[in-house]
C-alpha cells in the first residue's frame, strides 16, 4: 500500500513542489483495482425494487392509447408509470426543455421511453413490459440531417427556426470576402464526420430512495449531479432541499452521462410512488439509446491563404444531425464554429451552423464536444493547402500560430500557448523531416494540431455564482477532509483535490479524505464536462487551502513566537523557516488553532474570467485557458484491401502544468485510443430500410478498437503554465483526441495518395478512392454537396484589430452584454 507514498514536503523537487508534478497513484486506485469501488449497480438496499423501461419500437409515432392494466395485475409488480405521471418537460439546456421522462403523446426515436414498471425482480419487471399495450400511429421518420433540411412535415418538435431545424447560427467577424480577395489561394472543401458513441464500460444505473420524512435520495452514475438535482426538482415538483443526488463513481462517462436522463427521473418517481427503494440498470442496448454521442456533421470550409500559408479568411459551415432531442445541441452547434480561431491566426472569420432534428437517438457531448469535427476539416484542408503551396505542413503551421496572451477574431482570450513546442516535439520524435513524403508507397506520416477549452467560461444556466466550490475541514487529529461537488469519472478528479490541498498544507495526499458529488454534503461544482474540473476545482481548492493555512499559520506563529511570514507547511509539520526544528506536527497546529477559535473549516470558490465577446453566441468558446496538441500518425495502408493500420502516434500536449504526469499521460493515451476508434471504425450506424433503427447496438458489433488495434503512443507533455490554471495546469482529458483523426487521414494521403474526406476512414472508402485514382479519376471519397440552409443574416462583429469591442455592429454593448450564455437566449423564430 505504501509503495509509492511520499510524505508531503520531504521530497520537494527543484520547483519547490512536494506533491504537484509527481506521478503519484490516484487516491481511489486501490479500491478500483481490487473491485472495492461501489458503482451504482453495486448498491442494494433493503426491500429494493427493480425498474425497467418500455421503449418505443417506432422511430416516429403518435401514441393513441396505453393500457397498463394487465401489467399492473402481474404478481410482483408494484407500480407502472406512463407519461401522464410525469408531465413536465426537462432538458439539460434552458432553451431546449424538450424531453419527457416518459413520452406523453409522441415518440421520436426507437428507444424513446414510453412506460416504466417497478417490480420485486428484474425478470418480473421485464415480463410486465410485455403486458403493456401501446397503440401507436406511425409517422414518417426523418433519417438524416439533409432529409430534415428538405422535410418540414412532419415536424419532430414544434420549435426551431424552420422545418426540422433545431438551431441556426450565423456570425461574421470581419469581411471574409475581402479576406478571400487578398488571398493567393482559396480552397473550398467538403468533409463529413460520422457519429459515434461513448461506449463507457459501466452501463448507466441509478438507485432512488424516498424517506418517510419525504426526502428523495438518488444515487446515479452521472457526470453532472447538480444538473440532475435541478431536473429532478423541476419534473417531480419537489423543493430542491428535499432532494439529495449522489453521483456514484462513474465507470466511464466521456460525456455520455452529462444529461439528466429518463431512467433517473423514473426511478425517483417509482420510489416516491411505492415508498420502496428502486434500482434501474440499463442494458447495453439502452445505453446506445441514451447516446448523446458525437453529432454526425457535414462541413463546408472555404479558406484563403497567402503564398506562405497565412490564412486571410475562413468561412465555415456545419450541419449537425442532432437526433430526436435538444440535449446540449445548441452548445454543440456553436462549438463546431468556436475554436477554429485559437490555433492559427484567422484575421477574418465567418461561421454558419445548423442543427437538425432527426428520428434517431439524441446526440450530445462526446469527448471534444462539437470540436473534433471542425478540427478534422481544418487540419485536413491545411494539409491540402500545404501541398498546393509546396510547403511542409509542420512549417506552415509553425509560421502562423496564434500568439500567446492574445484575443482572436471571435473574442476568445488565449493565454499560454505551447503549440510550437508541441509541433517541434512530434516532428523530432517521428523523424518527420526525413520521412514525410519520402516513405515507400503504402506507408505514410500525417500531422495535425488542435486546441481545446479548459472549462466552459459560462454555466449551463445563467447564474452569478461560482462554477466550483470547495469546503475544507481540518480535524484536531490532523485529518483533513475536502468537500467538493465534482464527480469522479475515472479521470482523477478526486485525486486532484487531494494533491492540491496536500501541496498547500504540506501533508500526505493519501491522508486526506475526499468527499465529492453529494448535493447534501458538498458545495456545488457544475460537473465533469467541458474539461473544467482540474482548473476550476483546483483553483477553488487552492483558495480553501490557502485560507486554512492562514488560520493555522496565525496561531502557530503565536505559539512559536515567530512572524506569520516565516511559517512553513511541509513534511506533515508546521515550522519556522528560519529554524525548521522549531515547529509542531500538522495535527498540533490544527489543535492550536481550534483551541483558539474553534474548528478550522474554510471554503474556496472559482469563477472563470468574464468573456471578452458581447455578441449573441459569445458565450460558447470562452475558457480560462486553452490546451494545445500536435500529433503525427504513422500508417500502413494495404492497397489491395484499403485496410489502414496505425502502428504509432507521437503526440505532444500542452497541459500547462501536469499536476500528476502519470494521470495526464493516461488521459492522453485514452484520448488517442478514442480518436483512433473514431478515425478508423466506430460508427453509430442506422438501418433505414426497415425502420430508422441503430444497426448494431451491441459491444460486439459496434466496433471499437481492441488492444490489438491500439497503436503505440509516444506522449510528450509540454508544460507552458497558464496564469489561470492551478499551478499553471490546463486540461488534458479531451483535447488530445482532436488531432488524431486528421493526422491519420493526412497520413493515409501520404501513404497512398488518396483523400477520404469522411470519418470513419474505413477500408471500403480507402479502396474506393484507390480505384477511382487508378481509373484516372479524382482519388477522393467524401461528401459532394452541402444542402441549401437558411442560416439567416449574420451577426457582424468587428475583430479586435479592426477596432471592435466585442459587440455586434449596431448593437453596442450587445444583447449578450451581461456575458450570458447564448444557450439562455431563446432561439430565433422565423414566422
Amino acid at each position, binding site marked *: 500500500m505504501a509503495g509509492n507514498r511520499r510524505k508531503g514536503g520531504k521530497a520537494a523537487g527543484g520547483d519547490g513542489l512536494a506533491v504537484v508534478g509527481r506521478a503519484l497513484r490516484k487516491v481511489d486506485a486501490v479500491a478500483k483495482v481490487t473491485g472495492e469501488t461501489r458503482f451504482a*449497480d453495486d448498491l442494494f438496499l433493503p426491500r429494493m425494487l427493480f425498474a425497467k423501461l418500455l*421503449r418505443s*419500437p*417506432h422511430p416516429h409515432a403518435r401514441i393513441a392509447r396505453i393500457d397498463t392494466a394487465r401489467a399492473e395485475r402481474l404478481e410482483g409488480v408494484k407500480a407502472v408509470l406512463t407519461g401522464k405521471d410525469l408531465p413536465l418537460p426537462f432538458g439539460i439546456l434552458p432553451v431546449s426543455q424538450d424531453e419527457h421522462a416518459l413520452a406523453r403523446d409522441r415518440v421520436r426515436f*426507437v428507444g424513446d421511453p414510453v412506460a416504466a414498471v417497478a417490480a420485486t425482480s*428484474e*425478470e418480473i419487471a*421485464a415480463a410486465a413490459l410485455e403486458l403493456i399495450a401501446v397503440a401507436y400511429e406511425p409517422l414518417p421518420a426523418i433519417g438524416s440531417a439533409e432529409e430534415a433540411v428538405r422535410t418540414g412535415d412532419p415536424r419532430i418538435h414544434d420549435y426551431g427556426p424552420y422545418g426540422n431545424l433545431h438551431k441556426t447560427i450565423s456570425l461574421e467577424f470581419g469581411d471574409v470576402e475581402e479576406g478571400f480577395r487578398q488571398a493567393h489561394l482559396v480552397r473550398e472543401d467538403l468533409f463529413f464526420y460520422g457519429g459515434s458513441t461513448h461506449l463507457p464500460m459501466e*452501463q448507466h444505473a441509478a438507485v432512488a430512495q424516498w424517506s418517510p420524512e419525504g426526502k428523495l435520495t438518488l444515487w446515479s452514475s452521472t457526470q453532472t449531479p447538480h444538473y440532475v438535482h435541478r431536473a429532478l426538482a423541476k419534473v417531480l415538483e419537489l423543493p430542491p432541499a428535499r432532494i439529495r443526488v449522489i453521483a456514484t463513481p462513474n465507470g466511464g462517462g466521456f460525456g455520455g452521462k452529462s444529461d439528466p436522463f429518463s431512467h433517473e427521473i423514473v426511478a425517483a418517481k417509482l420510489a416516491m410512488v411505492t415508498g420502496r427503494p428502486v434500482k434501474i*440498470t440499463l*442494458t*447495453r*442496448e439502452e445505453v446506445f439509446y441514451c447516446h448523446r454521442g458525437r453529432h454526425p456533421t457535414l462541413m463546408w470550409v472555404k479558406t484563403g491563404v497567402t503564398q506562405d500559408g497565412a490564412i486571410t479568411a475562413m468561412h465555415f459551415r456545419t450541419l449537425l444531425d442532432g437526433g430526436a432531442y435538444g440535449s446540449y445541441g445548441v452548445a454543440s452547434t456553436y462549438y463546431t464554429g468556436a475554436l477554429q480561431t485559437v490555433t492559427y491566426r484567422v484575421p477574418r472569420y465567418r461561421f454558419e451552423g445548423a442543427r437538425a432534428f432527426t428520428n434517431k437517438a439524441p446526440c450530445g457531448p462526446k469527448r471534444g464536444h462539437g470540436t473534433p469535427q471542425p478540427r478534422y476539416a481544418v487540419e485536413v484542408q491545411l494539409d491540402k493547402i500545404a501541398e498546393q503551396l509546396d510547403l511542409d505542413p509542420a512549417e506552415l503551421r509553425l509560421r502562423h500560430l496564434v500568439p500567446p496572451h492574445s484575443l482572436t477574431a471571435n473574442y476568445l482570450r488565449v493565454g499560454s500557448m505551447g503549440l510550437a513546442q508541441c509541433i517541434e516535439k512530434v516532428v523530432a520524435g517521428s523523424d518527420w523531416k526525413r520521412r514525410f513524403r519520402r516513405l515507400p508507397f503504402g506507408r505514410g506520416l500525417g500531422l495535425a494540431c488542435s486546441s481545446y477549452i479548459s472549462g466552459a467560461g459560462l454555466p449551463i444556466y445563467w447564474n452569478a455564482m461560482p462554477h466550483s466550490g470547495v469546503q475544507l475541514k481540518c480535524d484536531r487529529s490532523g485529518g483533513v477532509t475536502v468537500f467538493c461537488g465534482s464527480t469522479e469519472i475515472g479521470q482523477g478528479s478526486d485525486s486532484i483535490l487531494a494533491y492540491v490541498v496536500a501541496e498547500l498544507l504540506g501533508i500526505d495526499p493519501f491522508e486526506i479524505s475526499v468527499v465529492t458529488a453529494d448535493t447534501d454534503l458538498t458545495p456545488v461544482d457544475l460537473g465533469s464536462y467541458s474539461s473544467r474540473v482540474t482548473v476550476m476545482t483546483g483553483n477553488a481548492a487552492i483558495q480553501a487551502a490557502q485560507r486554512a493555512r492562514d488560520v493555522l499559520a496565525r496561531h502557530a506563529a503565536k505559539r512559536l513566537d515567530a512572524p506569520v511570514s516565516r511559517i512553513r507547511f511541509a513534511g506533515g509539520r508546521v515550522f519556522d523557516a528560519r529554524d525548521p526544528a522549531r515547529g509542531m506536527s500538522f495535527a498540533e497546529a490544527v489543535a492550536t488553532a481550534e483551541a483558539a477559535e474553534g474548528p478550522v473549516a474554510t471554503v474556496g470558490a472559482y469563477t472563470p474570467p468574464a468573456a471578452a465577446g458581447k455578441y449573441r453566441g459569445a458565450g460558447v468558446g470562452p475558457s480560462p485557458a486553452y490546451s494545445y496538441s500536435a500529433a503525427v500518425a504513422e500508417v500502413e495502408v494495404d492497397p*489491395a*484491401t*484499403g485496410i489502414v493500420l496505425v502502428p504509432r502516434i507521437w503526440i505532444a500536449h500542452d497541459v500547462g502544468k501536469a499536476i500528476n504526469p502519470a494521470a495526464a499521460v493516461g488521459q492522453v493515451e485514452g484520448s488517442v485510443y478514442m480518436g483512433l476508434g473514431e478515425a478508423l*471504425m466506430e460508427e453509430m450506424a442506422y*438501418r433505414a*430500410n*426497415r*425502420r430508422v*433503427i441503430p*444497426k*448494431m*447496438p*451491441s459491444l*460486439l*458489433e459496434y*466496433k471499437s*478498437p*481492441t*488492444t*490489438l*488495434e491500439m497503436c503505440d503512443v509516444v506522449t510528450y507533455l509540454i508544460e507552458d503554465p497558464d496564469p489561470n490554471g492551478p499551478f499553471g495546469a490546463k486540461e488534458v482529458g479531451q483535447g488530445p483526441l482532436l488531432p488524431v483523426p486528421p493526422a491519420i487521414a493526412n497520413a493515409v494521403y501520404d501513404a497512398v495518395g488518396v483523400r477520404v474526406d469522411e470519418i470513419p476512414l*474505413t*477500408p*471500403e472508402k480507402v*479502396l474506393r478512392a484507390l480505384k477511382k485514382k487508378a481509373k484516372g479519376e479524382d482519388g477522393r471519397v467524401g461528401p459532394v454537396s452541402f444542402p441549401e440552409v437558411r442560416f439567416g443574416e449574420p451577426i457582424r462583429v468587428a475583430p479586435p484589430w479592426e477596432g471592435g469591442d466585442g459587440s455586434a455592429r449596431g448593437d453596442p454593448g450587445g444583447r449578450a452584454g451581461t456575458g450570458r450564455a447564448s444557450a439562455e437566449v431563446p432561439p430565433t423564430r422565423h414566422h
Partner: protein
Amino acid sequence: MLRLPAFTYLRPETLAEALRMKADGGPEAAYVAGGTDLYPNMKRRQQEPRTVISLMGIPELAGLGRGEAGWVIGSCVTLTAMAGHAALRRDLPTLAHAAELVSTPLLRNMGTVGGNLCLDTRCNYYDQTYEWRKAIDFCMKKDGAICWVAPSSPRCWAVSSSDLAPVMVALGASFVLVGPSGARVVPAGRFYLDDGIAYLAKQPDEILTEVRLPAPDGWDAAYHKLRRRGAFDFPVLGVAAWIRWDGASVAQARIVLGGVGSRPQEVPEAGAALQGTRLEPEAVEAAAEAAYRPAKPLDNTDFELSWRKQMTRVFVTRAIEELRARRA
C-alpha cells in the same frame, strides 16, 4: 441488465443419459457445450429452450489424440485445449491457427470444437435483443415471417460464421453423430446445409461426438480470416485453402469460403484451376477469380457487402500464396 430466462439445467454423465434427457425434453430441450454461443442467444431470446443439457460432463466427448487413421477430436474439447495441443499443432497447424482466431482467449477457454462447428448462423437482423427484433417485426429465423436481408426471398440468409467449419471441409474431416438410433459418420462437406435456419444435417436429437481428421500426408492448408478487429469478431470472410502436392505441382486442391453464405462454400472451379499447376501467378489469379464469382455476401454482417465480395479475390490469393511460399 439483460437476463437469462429461467430454464432447467441438466448435466448427464454419459451419452446415453444425454440422449434420454433430450428425448424427455423434446423440442424444448437443447444441448450445450461451452455455452458461448447459446447463452448470449438465450439472453436475447433468439433461442428459448426450457431445458438445457450440458455435454461437458461426458468423458467420451473430451478425448483428443492421434490414432492410426488420423486425429480424433472430441466435440467438447475447448478451442484453447485443441489449439494448445503440441502434437496437433505439429500435424494440423492450420486447424490450430483457425481455432486461435476465434473470438477472444476467454471465450476460447469456454468454447468448444463442437460448439464452433455447430455455431448458430449469424445475421445482424437476428443477433439482436428481443426488443430490437420486435421493432422490425422480427424475421423468419425467429418469431417472424420475412428475411429482411432479402425480403422477397423464401429462405433465411443468415451466415455461417464458424472459423473451424471451412477448415474442416477443406481438410476433408468427417463428423460422428450419435442419436437415439445409433451413430453415423458424415463428411464435413455434407454436414452443412444452404439455409440459414436449417443449417445443419444434424438432427436436433443427435449429438456431434467427435471429429476425425486425416493425418499429414503430403498435403498442406492455410486459413485466412477477414474481420474488423484482431479479436472478438466473427469472420465476414474465411478462406480455407488445401493442397495435396505431387512434387512441385498440385495434385489436388480445395478452396472453401466461410462467412459468405449459410454454409461453408467449396468452390470446385477454384480447386480445379490450381490442379496440375505449380501455383504460377496466372493459376492463382484464375483460382481467385473462380472463387470471387460465386461468393455472394449479403448485407447482414459487418462491412459493405461489395467490399466483402472484392476481398474474396484478395484473400484467396493470399491463402494460396502462403501455401506456395511454404513449399518454396
